[in-house]
C-alpha cells in the first residue's frame, strides 16, 4: 500500500511557520521558528491536511512524498 511522508527542503524554507499551524500533529517549530517534521508515515486521516499545509507554504518548502509502507 502506498503511503506518504513529509519532508522539508531546508534551503527553500524561510521559517514562515504556517505548516506547524496547519498540521501540529506532525510539525512543530524549533526555537528559531524552523519546522521539525515527524517523519513517520502520514496516515490517511491526515493526508488532506498535509496537502493543505504543502499548498500554503509561501516558499514551497514542504514536500509530501509517496513512500512504500
Amino acid at each position, binding site marked *: 500500500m502506498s503511503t506518504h511522508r513529509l*519532508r522539508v*527542503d531546508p534551503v527553500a524554507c524561510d521559517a514562515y511557520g504556517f505548516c506547524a499551524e496547519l498540521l501540529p500533529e506532525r510539525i512543530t517549530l524549533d526555537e528559531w521558528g*524552523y519546522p*521539525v517534521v515527524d517523519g513517520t508515515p502520514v496516515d490517511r486521516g491526515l493526508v488532506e491536511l498535509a496537502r493543505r499545509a504543502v499548498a500554503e507554504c509561501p516558499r514551497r518548502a514542504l514536500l509530501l512524498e509517496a513512500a512504500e509502507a
Partner: protein
Amino acid sequence: MSTLTAPALASRLLSPELDGRDPTSLADHLALRGELPPLRGDDAAWVAAMLQAVADSGLSGRGGAGFPSARKLAGIRRAGGTPLVVVNAMEGEPESLKDKVLLTAVLHLVLDGAAVAAALLGARRVVVCLPADDPSGTAEVLRRAVAERARAGRSGVEVVVAARPGGYAAGEESALVEGLNDRPGLPIFRADKATPLRVGRAPALVHNAETLAHLALIARHGAAWFRSAGTAASPGTTLVTVAGAVVRPGVFEVELGCPIDVICAAAGAPDDVAGVLVGGYAGTWLGPQHLGTPFERGALAELGATTGVGVLVVLAASSCGITETARIARYMAGESAGQCGPCVFGLPALAEDLELLAVGRAGPTTMDRLRGRASLIAGRGACRHPDGVVRLVESALVAFADDLERHARGHACRGTAAPSVLNIPRNARPGRRAA
C-alpha cells in the same frame, strides 16, 4: 610532514621505496608501480570483468561517506550520456593532510585511478579539484605531471586541473559539482540522493583522490590482492592523518582494522591522553577506554563513530576536551554554507553553550539546553554539515563526562587556559543568511 613507515604501518600507497625517487616523475612512478594494464573501455568483456573486480575488492569511498565504489560506478553508468570523472582532493577538513600527500607523493597513482574510472564509464574528461588557496604550488606540480603523461601518450582522457575556492564544505560533493557548473559552490538539497549529480549534462562520478589511487592498484593487482590487507568487512589499507599532541604528526598508511592506539603510537602519542577525535571535526571523541577499537567502519559504528576522512586528533590529558570542542564548534558554525536555518542558527547556539560550559559560566539549564538543541538539529540540513557538528558535540558530552560535570557546576579546569592543539583556520567566507 611525516610519511614514515613503521612495523604497524602498511605501504601500498606510501611505499618506502618512494624515498630517493621523484614521485612526480612518470618514469619513477612506472619503475616503482609497473605499467597499468591496457584500459579497454570499448571492450564490454573487459569493462564487465573490471567492474566485477572492483565489486569483489570491496573498495569503499575514502572521502568520508564510505559508499561502495562499485555501486557508485554502477549508478553513473545507469545514468546514461557521457560521464565525467571528478577527483575530489579539496581537503576541507583542517586536520587532514592526506589529499596533499596524494597529490604530491602518489599523484600518478591518483591519475591512473582516474583513467581506470574513466574507461569503466566511457568518460573522456577528468577534472582534478584541489583548493585554490594552497600556497605550496600543488596545482602546478600536478599540471606538469598531466602534461608529461599526455606527451607520453598515456592519458587516454583529457585531464583538467581545477583550483577551486576552499573552505570546510567545499569538498561536499554537491557543492563541488555546483561550483563546476559555474554556480555558487553551495550544497544543494536533493530529495532523491540516488539521482546522479551532473556537470552540464554529464553525470559526474565524484571520487576522493585516495579511492582512485586504490582503484589504480586494484587494476594492477586484482581484487584478491586488495583484500589481503584489512578485514573481511573493511578490506584494504587507508591513509590516516594523525594530529594533535603527537611527536610526529603527519599521514600514515594502515590496514583497515588497525587499533586506534597503535596508529597514534606510530605518530608518537603520549601515554596519558584525554581522548582522540576520530574522523575529523565532524567526527567523534573517544575516551581512553575505547582507543583499542579497530580503525574500521563496523567497529567504530558500534561507538557511533566513523572513519570519516581518516583523521585522528590526539588530546593530551592536560588539555580540556570541552574547551577544544567549543573551538571546533565555533569554527564549524562559521563554515556553514548559510542556506539552512537549523544550521545557520543551531550551530552558533551549540558553540555558545559549549563556550559557556568551557569557561565555567554555565547556568543551571545550560547543559539541558545544549542536549536538547543537539538532539533537534541533526538531519535537518541540505547537507550533513550540521549532523557532523551534532555528532562532535554529543560525543564530547560522553567522552569528557567527568570533566563536564565540574564545568556544568560553574568551574573551568586547568586545561581551559592551555594552548589549543588544533589547527583551526580562519573561516573561509560568510554564509548567505549570516549577519
